[in-house]
């Protein structure tokens, strides 16, 4: 069982609300078990703060199994910390060493304002989806599912794009705070499938327009988003989106 022996120094971003300015605050933690998840380590910190009469650190989290996309810490300069293909909630303390100093900040992007401490507002992503990230099919309008055979390779590629958890790590790590990986993943998923064809060119235009309106930056092909994405979403999606966006410009308005 896990009585741990790691001693750590945390430097955590504390910010009262969206209007105040924040700063990094130091906390010492001892007896941390390497089997703890990173968020469980924060639970220990918060328990100590509450006992001392201080305010606990606010951070977003929910499923703690890497799928809901809610957790969002920028750890030592990397979204979701040092390990590839994991979210913060699936990062375990065995990835750190006794005596480490760990700096923890919120996602930083103009389109993701800080709400409090480490929690940010990612509602811009919802608005981008609302602008076109769907197939317009009302409940009850569907034909038998097997009337629409889809080649396995296409279905698998669509699934890979659809695996995006909407956490925003791509935006947080991008020097331009671009949301292109997120937006292109949804566009790709639907562009790869026959169900997505009727609205394909409208979709790419309205989603890109909304993305710009939210204040996300542009893509300069650095690839940090792909490198940091906890779900391995590929840069190919951005290429696919750009191709469709360009094609849409050449298609007559009636077709779009």
């Amino acid at each position, binding site marked *: *069982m*896990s009585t741990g022996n790691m001693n750590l120094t945390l430097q955590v971003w504390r910010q*009262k609300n969206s209007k105040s300015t924040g700063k990094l605050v130091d906390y010492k933690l001892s007896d941390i*078990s390497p089997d*703890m*998840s990173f968020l*469980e380590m924060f*639970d*220990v910190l918060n*328990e100590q*703060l*509450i*006992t001392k009469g201080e*305010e*606990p650190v*606010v951070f977003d*989290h*929910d*499923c*703690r*199994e890497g*799928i*809901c*996309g*809610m957790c969002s810490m920028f750890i030592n300069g990397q979204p979701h910390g040092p390990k590839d*293909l*994991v979210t913060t909630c*699936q990062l*375990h303390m*065995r990835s750190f060493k006794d005596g480490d100093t760990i700096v923890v900040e919120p996602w930083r992007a103009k389109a993701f304002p800080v*709400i*409090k401490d480490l*929690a940010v*507002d*990612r*509602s811009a*992503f*919802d608005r981008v*989806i*609302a602008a*076109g990230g*769907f*197939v317009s099919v009302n409940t*009850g309008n*569907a*034909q038998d*599912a*097997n009337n629409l*055979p*889809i080649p*396995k390779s296409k*279905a698998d590629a669509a*699934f890979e794009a*659809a*695996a995006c958890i*909407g956490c925003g790590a791509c935006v947080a790590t991008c020097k331009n705070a671009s949301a292109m990986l997120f937006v292109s993943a949804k566009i790709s*998923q*639907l562009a790869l499938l026959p*169900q*997505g064809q009727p609205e394909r060119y409208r979709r790419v235009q309205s989603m890109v327009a909304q993305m710009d309106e939210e204040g996300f930056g542009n893509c300069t092909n650095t690839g940090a988003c792909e490198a940091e994405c906890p779900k391995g979403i590929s840069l190919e999606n951005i290429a696919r989106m750009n191709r469709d966006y360009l094609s849409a410009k050449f298609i007559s308005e009636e077709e779009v």
Partner: protein
Amino acid sequence: MSKLNSNIPAGELTQKWTKYKSSVPLVNPANKRSLEVIVVGSGLAGASAAATLAEMGYKVKCFCFQDSPRRAHSIAAQGGINAAKNYQNDGDSTYRLFYDTIKGGDYRAREANVHRLAEVSANIIDQCVAQGVPLAREYGGLLDNRSFGGTQVQRTFYAAGQTGQQLLLGAYSALERQVGMGKVQMYTRHEMLDVVVIDGKARGIIARNLITGELERHFGHAVVLGTGGYGNVFYLSTNAMGSNVTAAWKVHKKGAFFANPCYTQIHPTCIPVSGDHQSKLTLMSESLRNDGRIWVPKKKDDTRKASDIPEDERDYYLERRYPAFGNLVPRDVASRAAKERCDAGYGVGSSKLAVYLDFKANTERYGRIEASKAGNHNPDKETCMRLGTAVIKEKYGNLFDMYAQITGENPYETPMRIYPAVHYTMGGVWVDYDLMTTIPGLYCTGEANFSDHGANRLGASALMQGLADGYFVLPYTIGSYLSKEIATKPIPTDHPAFVEAENEVKATIDKFLSINGTKSVDHFHKRLGHIMWEKCGMARNREGLTQAIQEIQDLRKEFWADVKVPGSADEFNPELEKAHRVADFIELGELMCKDALNREESCGGHFREEHQTEEGEAKRDDENFAYVAAWEYKGVSQFELHKEELNYENIKVAQRNYK
């Protein structure tokens, strides 16, 4: 005289829903535009209901406590969704899905509801595929299926180990489409803290804006809850950290009956607890039992590594005890069998509270098939394992990765260690055939209601029920109520009932913040969870339950005297949110124990040690307990039992047999 009327339509079982649909009163489009519906929760049940109601023309407000509706805990469902499509031509049918679900639920669910669920199951798959949900396919381009527990057909549709995610994102995209059109107003980071009842009907809610702390009043001609299950009453469960019973409990205290609270599902294949720091447990999908064999050493306290234990010294106890279903027995049966082996001293791992889930045999088998496809008809073992591992990786890759992350072990090389954990709650708010609670105008869908799974839910049926309720059932049945409400003008939220409900919520918040005790909310939650797991968990008995009720009552008093909630009411304050939830869990925990104590039989997930067969199987008492226990709230620690008799007209009730 019971106050319960399940409102099941008359007629032949197979015709009930068809007849209902063609005779339910309609609301014309102009009237729909002036009728407002509040949907609380944005998981499969809530999001699909909100989207569909808006498509139909109703004005919808949808609430979720997360930062986006896409994060509801349905997203974490792994294995799949059942549907009676019979695409595999293996003899499946609506009737078989209906039958399997009733039997799997140990004959404690309503026939009419379950048959309707089976009928609409096929439509769900059609709808999701039309939305662009990328379900798994075969090389021919058609949809693939796999097996789940408690059935002998392959009717489970899936998207790798992320079926819930893909289905939820489908419902979320349908919801966001309506948000974009202005037909749904979405309230994220809002938590419902009470229902407003006027002249006996649900007319709105009090919600707290979790960022500003502001209390808001919202009117609706009807209110729909899709707020999920209450597994977190055990503290450790596979639920998300935020999953809670608060909305359901608040409506219970305002008059909605709570049914079968003691029916909880303990899932057999979860990653074992590793220490006191643990905040949640992680499921390893039931789909793994398609290809994994469960075993423990034949020798007690065997400390050898799994790979050092020869084949003939392993006890594949599920295959031994249940040869017909083997590793695919229903969850309650598999969980109890694991507990039995561990209690008897055959458990593995450092805690001895784990069994092995081993993929080696099937990895080798798949490898042999792959080699054969490539023309190698006599492959060596290493080739088989290499090729087979690739197959396993494609089927379950994300689950294996998750296991490796959490345990630090490589499941491709050593068997997984697994142990049962709380996963799902079959009990919930009592609803009639229309999914309406005992408060007129208040509906309850998905896991939050009690209706379809009896005493044990079969795998891959939660997604089915959530989407059935939201896409295909509620949008019809709510019309029967709303058609009578077309003359009701929106009630201004300065109505005394709104003011009073808000004041009550405010008083509770002030109380939390003024106690200023010495222990955190989590401290109490952990203690509650410990009581529940030890005394109202996989096995229950009279003595333990009686003690638990007393302990929970004491815990409640201590909580209200000594809890420490930092911060203030008018800010983002997660500790305050937790305080609300844990206060409600404590009250619910007491009712669960009382329900478990009342039910002097074993059925499904409810196992009373006093009631078992000589072979240790659950022993039902159909003569005295073939009823739904619906509890009415009468004040602190006061609950009155109402019984809804269960009548089986189409299925012959029998002792479940998976041997």
